[in-house]
């Protein structure tokens, strides 16, 4: 089957054969080397050599950006942004660009597999740059696979069946939820490493505490004049990097007013902080204190009575504890107070602390001081997606820990995993790996042979995102309420099957309440049933009288969205009248260094198997293909560490060995490690490459249940070994290393 799709009448030959021909054609028609297969049935609107464009949704992260994929002769060739989609307006991030490298990844699960837990899914000894790289063969057909799913539904108590799902796609989550609601199966749990590092639960909880309403705050960066970001890496991976980058661009271009100022508070200069006008390297754990101190100083500067929320903090104390000069704090406070539109954003490592909730609340309180709620350049609640009634929050780490506990306790007999790779993404300390032993049947729907699939009994691979139907709700990033639609842009490459189809078929096979819970012919019918209610909504981007036309438009435009601002204004009435603890956060471990894990902006949690993402230089360090640990050069000198020296990092939870990157923009008492590598499976390009910093993170949570991933203190020791990091930048030219003396 795969042959048919890969070998279709290639316009200009593909791959190595092309080059061979190119050389030999000098001697005449060397065409015997090339075979062309015509279409059996030419798809409508298709001409040989002309591209066809299909709108769909990017599934590299859960933001829901619209894509338009260029296809030629049945092959997807290029992913481009969907200019209609209000979320990304035709733009994409690097990961979105590389989505085709996932589609055509040489290591995909190629068919349904009954699998012995722990067995390799491909030959890992082979050269990753070579063609010969045999994958595990499919050993089941899909009828048998559906049978397996049906039986596990039927033969277990509903409460012993669990769905563990990723942040995308939403339609499958809706389907699983419908199934669970109708049959009593445990409500599906959603999780993703990005949501963990974004601390979405904390943001949500803080909003609830301050505004009395649950929801994901939206920060209108583009409209602001001064932006204070406390750890939010919104230009990298945070929530919706593409739309926040657009906001940043608007902030800087000053389209309406002056060029906006941007200040970033964090211990390690992220690539977001690199774009800031001022980078304030505060001591990790003092974010709440600093935010409150700025609030107090700003209030003083404005000449108003200090609001209750800021009253408890002593700016002198905050300055000394955070390591920021008092003058700096005062100057920042004045800047914040006197600007014509100030905005403060909490996020990233600032929330991943034991007092993360306090940080979030304190920073949101600053916005209350600036009085920007609902104003351009201020804080909003993100517009709810069209077929959504309330903000759906993914599971926090705490909830995941509870889930793991349930598994260990044997309360889960059958686990369906889709769209998430908990073995890799959850910190090892949470022991998901151990918990799998207590689950009698694990069925993975993984597209790629990831670590969780290796631990599964069955792998029933879902299509790649570009081969799939579906939709994704845009959680934040656009003013409008957006539902991004997905459709297959190519025929599936391998013998994979849409998980929704498998579940629908299995439910039909299982019969009874299962069959009645999912009374659909297939995934498309289910999707249509889900978007049908939108036809009656007003202010839509398009209208249609019947569902078929509506669905066709939905495909054509890549989703459905409203044309009006759908954001809600938070009620900040009480935000300044609460009291927030300014106490420093607590750190686990007795090491000398604060550990700041951050999500690699180019790889994120699932990019490691795409070779071009591996080869993209990290925006701050320009390292490719590996993981590093960032250490301040002064500290490194003290410890006698040169670039590429391997150090051993020990925390309460684990040990890692990583090569050193002498990073000049990090606090001397802090080290930072990117998250995204360290796979033990997941294909030839990901495996055995770098390390996973979550191995160092212990089971510490903040008040909102999010993981205190930045709440560790670690020891760093020199091992004496060296491992060269691949950098794009020149050590000589950028750092003057090896040029003799300082130049």
């Amino acid at each position: 089957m795969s042959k048919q799709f890969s070998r279709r009448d290639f316009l200009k030959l593909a791959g190595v054969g092309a080059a061979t021909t190119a050389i030999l054609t000098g001697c005449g028609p060397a065409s015997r080397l090339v075979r062309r297969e015509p279409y059996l049935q030419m798809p409508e609107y298709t001409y040989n050599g002309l591209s066809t464009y299909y709108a769909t949704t990017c599934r590299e992260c859960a933001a829901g950006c619209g894509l338009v994929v260029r296809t030629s002769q049945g092959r997807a060739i290029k992913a481009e942004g969907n200019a209609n989609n209000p979320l990304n307006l035709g733009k994409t991030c690097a990961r979105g660009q590389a989505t085709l490298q996932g589609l055509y990844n040489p290591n995909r699960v190629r068919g349904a597999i009954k699998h012995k837990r722990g067995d390799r899914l491909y030959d890992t000894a082979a050269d990753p740059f070579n063609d010969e790289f045999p994958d595990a063969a499919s050993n089941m057909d899909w009828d048998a696979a559906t049978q397996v799913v049906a039986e596990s539904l039927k033969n277990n108590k509903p409460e012993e069946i669990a769905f563990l799902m990723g942040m995308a796609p939403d339609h499958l989550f809706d389907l699983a939820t419908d199934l669970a609601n109708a049959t009593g199966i445990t409500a599906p749990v959603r999780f993703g490493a990005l949501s963990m590092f974004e601390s979405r639960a904390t943001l949500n909880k803080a909003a609830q505490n301050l505004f009395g309403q649950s929801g994901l705050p939206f920060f209108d960066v583009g409209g602001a004049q001064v932006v204070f970001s406390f750890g939010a890496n919104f230009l990298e991976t945070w929530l919706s990097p593409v739309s926040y980058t657009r906001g940043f661009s608007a902030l800087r271009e000053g389209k309406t007013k002056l060029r906006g100022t941007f200040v970033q508070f964090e211990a390690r200069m992220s690539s977001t902080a690199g774009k800031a006008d001022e980078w304030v390297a505060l001591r990790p754990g003092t974010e709440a204190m600093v935010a409150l101190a700025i609030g107090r100083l700003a209030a003083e500067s404005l000449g108003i009575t200090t609001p209750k929320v800021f009253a408890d903090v002593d700016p002198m104390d905050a300055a000394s504890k955070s390591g920021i000069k008092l003058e700096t704090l005062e100057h920042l406070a004045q800047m914040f107070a006197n600007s014509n539109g100030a905005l403060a954003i909490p996020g990233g490592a600032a929330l991943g602390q034991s007092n993360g909730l306090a940080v979030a609340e304190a920073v949101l309180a600053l916005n209350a001081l600036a009085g920007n709620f609902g104003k351009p350049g201020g804080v909003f609640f993100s517009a709810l997606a069209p077929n959504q009634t309330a903000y759906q929050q993914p599971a926090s780490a705490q909830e995941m820990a509870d889930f793991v506990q349930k598994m260990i306790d044997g309360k889960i007999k059958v686990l369906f995993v889709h769209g998430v790779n908990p073995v890799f993404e959850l910190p090892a300390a949470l022991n998901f790996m151990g918990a799998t032993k207590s689950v009698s049947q694990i069925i993975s729907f993984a597209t790629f042979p990831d670590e969780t699939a290796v631990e599964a009994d069955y792998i029933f691979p879902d299509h790649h995102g570009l081969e799939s139907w579906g939709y994704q709700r845009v959680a934040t990033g656009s003013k409008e309420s957006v539902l991004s639609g997905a459709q297959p842009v190519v025929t599936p490459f391998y013998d994979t099957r849409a998980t929704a189809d498998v579940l629908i078929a299995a439910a039909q096979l299982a019969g009874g309440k299962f069959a009645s819970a999912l009374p659909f012919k297939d995934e498309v019918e289910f999707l249509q049933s889900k978007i049908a209610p939108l036809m009656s909504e007003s202010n839509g981007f398009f209208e249609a009288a019947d569902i078929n036309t509506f669905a066709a438009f939905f495909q054509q435009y890549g989703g459905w969205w409203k044309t009006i601002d759908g954001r809600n204004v938070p009620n900040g009435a009480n935000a300044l009248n609460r009291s927030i603890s300014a106490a420093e956060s607590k750190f686990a471990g007795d090491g000398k260094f604060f550990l700041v894990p951050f999500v690699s902006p180019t790889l994120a949690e699932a990019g490691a198997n795409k070779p071009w993402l591996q080869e993209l230089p990290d925006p701050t360090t320009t390292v490719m293909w590996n993981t590093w640990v960032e250490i301040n050069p002064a500290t490194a000198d003290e410890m006698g560490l040169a670039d590429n020296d391997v150090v051993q990092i020990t925390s309460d939870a684990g040990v890692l060995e990583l090569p050193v990157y002498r990073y000049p923009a990090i606090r001397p008492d802090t080290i930072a490690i990117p998250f995204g590598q360290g796979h033990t499976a997941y294909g030839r390009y990901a495996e055995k490459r770098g390390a996973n910093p979550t191995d160092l993170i212990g089971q510490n949570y903040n008040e909102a249940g999010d993981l205190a991933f930045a709440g560790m203190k670690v020891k760093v020791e020199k091992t004496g070994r060296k491992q060269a990091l691949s950098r794009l930048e020149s050590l000589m030219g950028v750092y003057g290393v090896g040029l003799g003396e300082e130049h």
Partner: protein
Amino acid sequence: MIRPEEIKLSADQSGKWGMVIDQDICTGCQACVAACAMENNISFVGEADSGYGRSMHWIRIERFWEGEYPEIKMTPNQPMLCQQCGSATCEPVCPAFATVHSQAEQLNVQVYNRCVGTRYCANNCPYQVRSFNWRDYKRPEPLPNQFNPDVTVRRRGIMEKCTFCIQRIHKAQDKAKSEAREVLDGEFTTACAQACPADAIVFGRVDDPESLVSQLAHRNHGVKHLEELGTLPNVTYFKGG
């Protein structure tokens, strides 16, 4: 037949296609790098080779540091790509005419099939934006399915560089011609400009004073890199800040 004396030298012309890059809003997110690689069939080279300075990026984002901790600043990200010089130093040194100045498009053209691999052009490029295929970089099946049929797949021993997505230029011109009109400003753009989430890269006709890129380029704080060498680059940078 065009006689040599009838050739208009690029130094007397203002260029045709050009680009404006705003370093102040470039976030260094690498979307342009990825987009370029996806559009132009650029090979990835693996860890060892990329670390040894053999990566094939046609566009790279440079950043330096200013000052020392804690007063340290990252310099504005500087996307560096072929500047499509009007008077390119890479061209005259090629013994095989593999890199020449396109009269029709006023671009600096690399003719892959004519390249014998002396690498003189790359040495002589003051911007160091040419990349050489040091090996036949392998793209295991089915990765080659992604190949853009409009762009030649390069093999070992060939120099390559940014083309300003000339395949898109041709496509747009072909389309405009089939519809009997001129190419409109903004009708198409390069892969990097198209992907850039911050809109830091703008591409268009610099010889058309009405185009967006011309309007932007005439802002007074634009600079061209190494202009002092007389290369007449067609990429304008805004340092910003």
